[in-house]
């Protein structure tokens, strides 16, 4: 299986390269980037204990094409040793005619939450937070085909201390969504944001739901801290409640707090240490908040180079049903990873 995966990734890269080598390369600036990672995860989950260890490798191959000064395109291929082939994750085109209103079209990230917009190679923990996983499953975070108008704050342009994104998306589950997100950047690496999502599913089991996210944080050379709170309505549970003749508005909410410290070691091998801690809370139904999951993530990233990290991560999940006396640790995991960005 690994051979097939490597072969598939190799062929994909060759095709991508081959398509770019002829004459247009002379006119277009093409850049490659991505990452590779290999690691192990030990997961507390119900399937037989012997299968609760996963050893994996994964990679991303991204091609950024500057078609001209105003038009950029991006291809993003991913592969994971669990998959049978590399997949095209994103194709997008960016139109940069108006500095404060860039336009992006393609299979792109929906601008809802702070974590939902982060790239994998920017992650401090190895895994997504439980809150982000659940919100993605409900359809609020993640990629869909759509069009987005946006501006991202640049430090060299302090006269525009804000970011925003407004987008409309459609997926292949008959869901149309509209998003709006805005951030202010008062200075010193700090920011505060609010995001709104409107999801509307048509056909049988049609339902419309809403989501709201707020976050704030600060980022400096030595410290990253952020707090994020999300409220969304659960469309799946809403449909089930409707079948029962009950109110189909089911309010789901969660919050998380992340703190990471960077300690300059300056050694021959280890350049930087980044210990971090993340605390989270999620309840699938605010009316029954005794059913909830608490999350404690702890870890350290050891930088051997700016782009090479050894990562250790413990993800403790403590889930409780309102009818139970104790918390279950199902889904908790421990991970080790070597991550290289290029």
């Amino acid at each position: 299986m690994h051979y097939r995966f490597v072969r598939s990734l190799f062929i994909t890269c060759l095709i991508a390269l081959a398509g770019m080598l002829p004459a247009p390369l002379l006119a277009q600036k093409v850049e490659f980037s991505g990452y590779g990672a290999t690691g192990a995860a030990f997961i507390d989950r119900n399937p037989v204990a012997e299968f609760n260890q996963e050893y994996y490798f994964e990679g991303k191959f991204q091609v950024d094409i500057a078609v001209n000064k105003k038009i950029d395109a991006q291809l993003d291929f991913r592969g994971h040793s669990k998959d049978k082939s590399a997949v095209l994750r994103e194709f997008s085109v960016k139109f940069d005619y108006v500095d404060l209103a860039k336009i992006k079209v393609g299979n792109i990230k929906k601008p809802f939450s702070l974590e939902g917009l982060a790239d994998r190679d920017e992650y401090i923990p190895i895994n997504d937070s439980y809150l982000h996983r659940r919100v993605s499953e409900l359809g609020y975070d993640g990629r869909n085909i759509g069009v987005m108008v946006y501006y991202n704050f640049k430090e060299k342009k302090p006269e525009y201390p804000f970011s925003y994104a407004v987008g409309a998306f459609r997926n292949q589950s008959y869901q149309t969504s509209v998003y709006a997100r805005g951030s202010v950047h008062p200075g010193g690496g700090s920011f505060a944001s609010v995001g709104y999502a409107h999801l509307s599913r048509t056909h049988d089991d049609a339902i419309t739901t809403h989501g709201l996210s707020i976050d704030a944080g600060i980022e400096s050379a030595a410290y990253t801290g952020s707090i994020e709170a999300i409220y969304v309505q659960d469309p799946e549970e809403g449909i089930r409640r409707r079948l029962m003749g009950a109110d189909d508005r089911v309010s789901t909410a969660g919050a998380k707090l992340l703190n990471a410290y960077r300690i300059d070691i300056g050694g021959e091998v280890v350049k930087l240490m980044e210990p971090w801690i993340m605390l989270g809370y999620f309840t699938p139904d605010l009316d029954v908040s005794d059913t909830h999951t608490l999350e404690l993530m702890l870890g350290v990233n050891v930088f051997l180079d700016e782009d090479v990290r050894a990562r250790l991560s413990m993800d403790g999940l403590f889930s409780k049903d309102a009818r139970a006396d104790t918390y279950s640790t199902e889904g908790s995991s421990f991970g080790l990873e070597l991550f290289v960005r290029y």
Partner: protein
Amino acid sequence: MTSRISILLPLLLLLGCDTEGTPDYAARTGDLPTLDAWMTQEQYVSLLSNRWSDEKAPTDFFIGEQRYRGTMEPQGAGSRYHARWSFKVVLDAGEELHGLRAFNLSAQIFDRSMLRTVLGREVFGALGFPSFASQHVFLRLNGRDRGLYAQIERVEEDFFRRRGLPVYELLKTSFGARFSFKDDMLLEKYFAREIPKDGNLNTLGEMIAALDAATDENMFRTVGRHLDIRGYLRYHAAASILNHQDGFANNLLFYKRTPASPYEIIPWDFDKLLYDQADVGLVGPNDIIAALFRSDSCIALYKSEARAMLDTLITPARLFPLLDATADRIGPAWALDPALGLAGFSLAAESSRLKEHLMRRREVFLRQLDTISR
């Protein structure tokens, strides 16, 4: 200082939790297997938001102590419009789950009782039709309960190999399939040749042309060369008694054992058996039966086949114990299904409704069978 307190307080709360290990989810469903499917989180999110794309997600499946590897993808037509939909699973070469390498996990969205497939397999199997293998499983996907599903064998090469049944040709039908060239019917619109997979629909076209041209006098001589008429009439009578809504157009497959043999029927997808929103009448509507009923002999055969099954097969004594035993077996899983038991429905009530509908159909046929004519 504030940031340290903001970390320490929740940390103390977490460390103060009474904890236990992972619950034994399989124990909740009694004898019924719990199929625990796991894929990467990214694949899972993509699967949820792209149910109309047939993108395969590499998946690990666990039942009890066993792990199986394969792929999972959304499956079905109408069911994909619903919150609960079906999946196609193909296991890696050499792996089989309940004897099947490729199968559907069918949500059976029109069958709240989850008993109709058992009923359909029993009736059509007893009538001599090749019947797909099926069993219930409780599906969990990435740690979330999806609910009770029917694991259904796919009708492909393996289906025939497993039964030692020769197959020269297999045709699948789709929504609204027509069996007449009147009104500009286009074969490619309604039919797909699955074995061999070459798109050649000529022999089907010959059967349909024969149906269009058939008369009372030449029916068995012309149509009989292309279609197992007696077998088809038996199928049609059973499908009509069982009010098999989709059984006259899209949920039946045609196969030939050899190039020279006539088409025979493989029944498919029973979640709209005894569908109570519409009634197919004493003779379910399609172009095949309309053509066959130009023959008095076919009408007589239809009645005798229907009478025989009403006398010995479609009876409470024969079918109800099977339905009751199945309901007992699936009961615990049915109660845990988010769209069934957890949505406030009752298996006992759904089962009773199904049985009552079956008995109503039986009584109508016993009373009115002799009135069927051209």
